[in-house]
């Protein structure tokens, strides 16, 4: 089957579903923002995910929480079967075979609600030594393990570091995809000496193969330009430039200027730091697609034109680049009723469309009764 990537319309929040060539689903983040009373999001993410998985009991092969911000894990405790507490175990919940989290998610203190539940679930699984992949192995993770009477070596099968691919996924396998980990970088976390949640989040490049063509999707989280610059430098240093090529970019931080230049938003357009400019301008491919998982891009002077992303200055940087390379810049909340769906074809990415139905196909595809 054709692999697809769907980015859901959840406001400034992230959920990206990968449907692999072998039918497996991998979810990057889960932010059911429509559950929040104050939310103006009316997209029912839980139903969308469950309907796609079929009927109960639901099983999801992998769930990646790139970091534990609420806009990346809202509703985690209500929707998923959590191993660490019976309270979160009933037949209507989705069982996750493998939970992917950054090391920071295990180590961060002072978390509440869904963020805390992600941490507790990840901790539980790591201590059990199964059903979890922890991204990066900073010193403090090792210390934490030692504190639990374990060693890093004893949990090495649960840990994947930047510069590696995630085990269990290969372009040669039926899933026809591999994930190369760019972030978090263990050494950066050691240098930082504290948890900086966004910067220690998960960034991966997914490489799909269809026919003979490789299609690459860069799945950004909320990292800023400093972290991206480190990723770029580190990648170039290792001669892995192709690991930063992209045909699809799930944009960083809801189209925030900070991913381009953390220090300068710009008046009309953000000027990116050189490493990020290279990443966007050189590594993006002809007719590629950028998806901004964000609210609509504000116009100048509108009430949404404020500190919060999305920033029109960042969009003003991306859009002409995409136009020039004959690609597309898609904002999820421009079409709030359905996810932006990208097909991975033998000719690269294409925005999947629901073709106009044949007349009467709605009626003829279901039984019609009359009394």
């Amino acid at each position: 089957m054709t692999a697809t990537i769907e980015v859901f319309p959840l406001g400034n929040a992230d959920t990206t579903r990968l449907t692999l060539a072998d039918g497996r689903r991998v979810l990057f983040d889960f932010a059911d923002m429509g559950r929040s009373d104050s939310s103006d999001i009316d997209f029912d993410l839980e139903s969308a995910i469950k309907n796609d998985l079929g009927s109960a009991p639901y099983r999801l092969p992998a769930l990646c929480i790139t970091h534990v911000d609420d806009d990346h894990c809202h509703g985690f405790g209500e929707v998923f079967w959590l191993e660490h507490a019976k309270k979160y175990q009933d037949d209507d919940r989705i069982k996750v075979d493998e939970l992917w989290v950054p090391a920071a998610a295990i180590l961060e203190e002072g978390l509440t609600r869904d963020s805390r539940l992600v941490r507790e679930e990840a901790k539980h699984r790591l201590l059990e030594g199964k059903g979890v992949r922890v991204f990066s192995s900073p010193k403090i993770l090792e210390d934490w393990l030692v504190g639990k009477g374990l060693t890093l070596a004893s949990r090495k099968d649960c840990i994947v570091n930047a510069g590696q691919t995630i085990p269990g996924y290969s372009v040669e396998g039926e899933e026809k995809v591999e994930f190369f980990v760019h972030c978090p970088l263990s050494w950066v976390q050691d240098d930082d000496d504290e948890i900086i949640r966004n910067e220690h989040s998960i960034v991966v490049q997914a490489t799909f193969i269809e026919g003979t063509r490789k299609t690459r999707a860069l799945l950004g989280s909320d990292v800023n330009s400093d972290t991206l610059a480190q990723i770029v430098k580190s990648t170039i240093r290792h001669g892995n430039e192709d690991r930063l090529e992209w045909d699809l970019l799930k944009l960083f931080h809801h189209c925030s200027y900070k991913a381009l230049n953390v220090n300068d938003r710009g008046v009309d357009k953000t000027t990116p730091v050189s490493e990020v400019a290279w990443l966007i301008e050189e590594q993006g491919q002809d007719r590629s697609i950028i998806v901004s998982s964000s609210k609509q891009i504000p116009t100048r002077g509108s009430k949404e034109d404020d500190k919060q992303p999305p920033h029109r200055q960042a969009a003003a940087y991306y859009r002409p680049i995409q136009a020039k390379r004959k690609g597309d810049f898609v904002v999820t909340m421009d079409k709030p009723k359905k996810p932006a769906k990208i097909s991975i074809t033998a000719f690269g990415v294409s925005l999947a469309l629901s073709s106009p139905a044949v007349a009467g196909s709605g009626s003829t595809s279901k039984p019609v009764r009359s009394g």
Partner: protein
Amino acid sequence: MELESLNEGEEPSAHSINKEAKAAKAITSDLARSFLEFIEHHANDEIGLVGCYDLSEGVEGVQIEFPTGTHQEPAYDVRPVESLLVMFLKGSAPAVASLRPSFPMTKHTFGLEIDAPTDAQVALCIDDRAWEDASSDYNGAEIVRRIASWFRRAITGNMDDELQFQDPVFLPSPASIVVGTTIEKQILEQESHPLFLAIVQGDEGSNTYFGHAYDDAPPPDEGKIWTPFLVVSLARVANNTGAMWRPPSNLGQLSQSVSSTDNELLTQLRDTLSSFWASLEGAEHDKLKTANLLIHIAIRNAELDRYESYWLMARESVADIAVGLGILLPPDPDVGSDYVLRLTRGELDADALAKVGFMSANSFGSFENHLARAMSGLELIAEHATILGVGSIGSQITINLVREGAFERITLIDNDRLLPHNLARHTLTSSSISHLKSSEIAKHIKDISADFVVKALGSKLDSSESDKEVQQALSSSSIVFDFTASVGASRDLSDCLSRGRAVSAFFNPLGNAYVVLAEDEAGHCDLACLEAEYYAQVAQIDDFADHLSDPNRVVVSSGQCRSVSNRLCASDAALLSAAATKSIRKVVSEPSASITVGTIGYDGSLQNRHIKVSAGSIMVEIDGWTIRMSAAVEARLRSARDQGLPCETGGVLLGIVDHRRKRVEIAHMLPPPADSSFAATEFVRGVSGLRDAIDQVSARVMHQLTYVGEWHSHPKGASATPSLVDHVQINELALDLASESRPAVMVIVGEKETCIAAME
């Protein structure tokens, strides 16, 4: 990828719509409203509505952002989202224009008219059909489906599908000009001498005109003369991407509509006019000066590897046009000078050229064989065919085959003349009554295709008559059709040695079936042989029990079993003739000999039976008689021998006896009567029921088969040489048939060979 500059505005800005936007609810066209309704409620929010406009009187526009679903390697430069303007014109198909200046000119696009109410230049052809045919299929959803389908095909490069065939280069014009093959050749060969045409309107009020060579034009109305049109042919090869071009509406547009930078048609036109002006003298020069201009644009459609052309007719004089082209200086009344050729060419006078309006016209050549084949989708059967008999079935099959381009030339042979009763099912009409059918059919063919080469001979194929023209026609034809419905003519043709492969077609007397007898390619199974086998099949096959029964509905007596004067309605004659034409096409494509019988059911259905006939025969001659047995008959005898072993078996033989030609064709055998006796070295044919059996078969084939002799087998290991007993028997048979003035036949089937013994 290289990004020299990433400034906004790199992509040329979109074409503008220089009209005030209006509210969607103010749109009045029903189709536009349906389109808007679909976009708003049923398009899954995928299509962006940008604005609605009154573009011009009676033309409303809806601007949309249409998602194409393109991938990264589209065959044509299709973007993920395309900005489109859908224009709704009353009484016309919606026009879908791209507002992107760099939109590719792919197949199934066409240029918008220069005065279209938008700056957009390219429109997507989403439907080839005439709007009168297509409009009932259209609603808003259909427009979206067709646009989506168009982009899907542009992305994959498979632009032609069941919805849209390959495009011509030009959009059609309302008017057409038809020229004959001779003129067409002259135009394409672009002789140095100018060609003047008279353009004569067809039926009054029609948009079809005929281009006649000026001097051969039909006489104009009294007191009038035809305006001479100077034909200038401008040709170029179109490395056609498939976009359809709109003919220019004036001379000034010639460059921008059709020319390319390396093939400037205005330059070609200037060169041609200069050359004519300089080379002509006297009356020809005067004619040139006053002639109007008729430009023939010929473009090679590289995609389809064919030439396409159209006409541009200007109503200005060549001299005035030449002034605008900077070739001539205009007359100067002050000094009394006429038009003068400029020594060096002047500038093009854009204003003057823009005033030279064109009437564009589609170009039609005459209906000739190439076109006939293109239209029928069928192949040439033979370069030259001779057709014997153009009666009811003959005229219909002949006309069908001519219309299908089956031959390059034909010779028609028929000495019959048209009589009133023939009109019941002949292609000719009452004006031909009393005329030779062959000549009249030849005229009819000329009316269909003036350039078709057809020769009519008012002769008759007769073995006793040596008609050189007929013989020459037969010997120069690779295929000869016998549509005479005459047994005699068919047999005479069969006897003719110097001729092409023969195929005979006729109706049965009941008028419910056609029969096609086709000789084999190698010429080993001739028509006479096939006739015998045809009767044998009719005698054997249950379905054919009534095939040759006499309906006794003769209108005009002629006495032949295949007489065309049987009662037969026109629709059946047409149906059977058309079916026979198809059968002929099939059988001539096969090397083997065959018999095809197509029978109409009561409901008009047609049941065909196609029988392949083995080639080869055994023949003996005695006292001027030729006795022949086909391989098919021999095979049946041998099979009966095998079944009878170890005893001998046998029975009576039926065949065609032709006293005129002194021929006996052995066609059929009857099973041994019940009182026959069988032994290892002897067979005695009984008599029980035999006469009745013979009479039954004879009646079933309209008495075309008669008793010709006997056959028997020899036992295993034995030869076919007649035994002493056989010699005695053949003598007795000969005595018996002496009263019939023909030899008796005895066939003996041995272990390996078959022997025909005959005695008169």
